[in-house]
């Protein structure tokens, strides 16, 4: 019954600092393959920081540094020989606020594939076909197939977020990180994103940060609960499969948070 022996991504004793401030303290967690893992916890507990460290997006903040190891396919992604650009290509990301490029819908999806060396080969999809496949997978194709050339910014918020998902899967990542992907959307659009996440789990490993308890309970297979330690740095309290965390948490802090949030 123990699913966490070795996952798609293994986080071991990771601490993340912004300058002198430690935002995440000694987290060890394994992300299982082809499942959805939700990171929950109060705001400021470092769950977004932890998520962004999984594909080295934190590197872009000049003052940040990391201790511990994060392995992907058995390789430490923070090792010197590793290229952060390659990491992000295999571990894609969807952000809190939909942020399509101010370009056509088609270009939004095609660009990532193109810069990552997309090749047109016989028996394999052409770029046009690949854009179509990605948009279908992102459940957006029917809505945009007649206006691929119009700007990505012309879509509604929910459509923009699905476009961002299509953009993320177009580079054929194995893992998709989602940082509160539905927090800027209305309830109906949120529901569509959640359905989409379930569909994508068949093909991708997904890690999602959310502060919406119902959402975590609805979509995730596994849930990790983080909270703030007394020195304001984030610690991992417990993680396990979602029904267990929500119905029978081991730690009292988890129980307190969940019952408080469910009201």
């Amino acid at each position, binding site marked *: 019954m123990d699913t966490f022996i070795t996952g798609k991504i293994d986080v071991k004793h990771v601490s993340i600092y912004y300058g002198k401030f430690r935002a995440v303290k000694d987290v060890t967690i394994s992300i299982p393959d082809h499942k959805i893992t939700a990171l929950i916890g109060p705001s400021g507990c470092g769950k977004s920081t932890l998520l962004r460290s999984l594909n080295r997006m934190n590197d872009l903040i000049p003052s940040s540094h990391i201790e511990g190891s994060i392995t*992907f*396919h*058995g*390789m430490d*992604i923070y090792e*010197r*020989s*590793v*290229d952060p*650009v*390659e*990491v992000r290509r*295999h571990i894609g990301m969807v952000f809190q606020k939909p942020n399509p490029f101010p370009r056509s819908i088609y270009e939004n999806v095609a660009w990532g594939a193109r810069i990552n060396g997309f090749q047109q080969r016989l*028996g*394999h*999809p052409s770029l046009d*076909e690949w854009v179509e*496949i990605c948009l279908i997978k992102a459940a957006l194709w029917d809505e945009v197939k007649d206006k691929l050339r119009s700007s990505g910014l012309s879509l509604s918020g929910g459509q923009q977020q699905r476009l961002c998902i299509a953009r993320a899967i177009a580079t*054929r990542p*194995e893992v998709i990180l989602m940082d509160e992907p539905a927090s800027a959307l209305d309830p109906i659009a949120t529901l569509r994103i959640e359905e989409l996440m379930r569909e994508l789990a068949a*093909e991708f490993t997904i890690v999602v940060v959310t502060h919406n308890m119902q959402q975590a309970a609805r979509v995730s297979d596994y849930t990790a609960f983080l909270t703030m330690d007394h020195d304001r740095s984030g610690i991992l309290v417990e993680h396990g499969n979602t029904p267990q965390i929500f119905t029978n948490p081991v730690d009292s802090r988890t129980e307190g948070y969940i019952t408080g949030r469910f009201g």
Partner: protein
Amino acid sequence: MIPSQTKLIDEKVTSQLLKKRNRLGERFIESTLVFCGFISIFITLGIVFELGKEALPFFSSTDFKLIKFLTGTTWQPQIKLFGVLPLVMATLTTTVIALLIAIPFGIGIAIYLSEYASVKLRSTIKPTLEILAGIPTVVYGYFALSFVTPFLRVLFGKDVVEIYNTASAGIVMGILILPLIASMSEDALAAVPRSLREAAYGLGATKIETTYRVVIPAAISGLAAAIIVGISRAIGETMIVALAAGAGPKFTFNPFQGAETMTGHIVRVSGGDLSYDSIDYNSLFGISLLLFFMTLSLNMLSQWVVRKLSEVK
């Protein structure tokens, strides 16, 4: 179609997956950009080094004495007299006159625009000031010579006001830096939060009381910076004084007489065909160096004032 994609993924899953690529293009671009970043440092060093190098023969010549340079009241290279005071004095005269015009009008305009003017009026006056700021200085020089000087001569008499005089140059220089001071001051005043004004109105203060007791003190660092930048601009201004202030260094306190400023002297002497390695040539670099450090310290002072006083707030 999709299965074949999945197969490709499987083949690529090796420990080499994330290996750092040798992105030569990226590295080349990055080093080019770093080089660009350092160009500005090279320029500053170049100014200090080149000006210093060319000025060195002047400073080290036997005719040069630092005391005499800084306190002498005659600048006549022909007879080896190098007192920089006449030039500095003329620069100060024009600058002071310019400030007498630019500070009251500039700050007055700024207060009017930020506190009194309607949005519509502001949106017409601000571009007008920008036009004024965008006119080349040689045009201001023309204005000084063809309008302000004749005007002064009619006003005060032709025997009082010389054809070339520092007053005319100073007045026009004031008009030149007026938009600069006005727009910087307006920015500073506009940055004062509304809540501060409302607090004063809430106590029954009139508009002008609010402005003088609350808004101006809150914006004082910005206003000071605007004035300092204005001074620096006036000291370095060249074409107006070259055209209107007069040729030939002269130690005088009378603004109606002609006198040559530091910049005016550099332009006049270098405009003629000057032979390198003459003491004239080298002395110009001495003056330039003095000018450079004067304006540099003023500019740094203004940045410091903004930083320091905004910390206090």
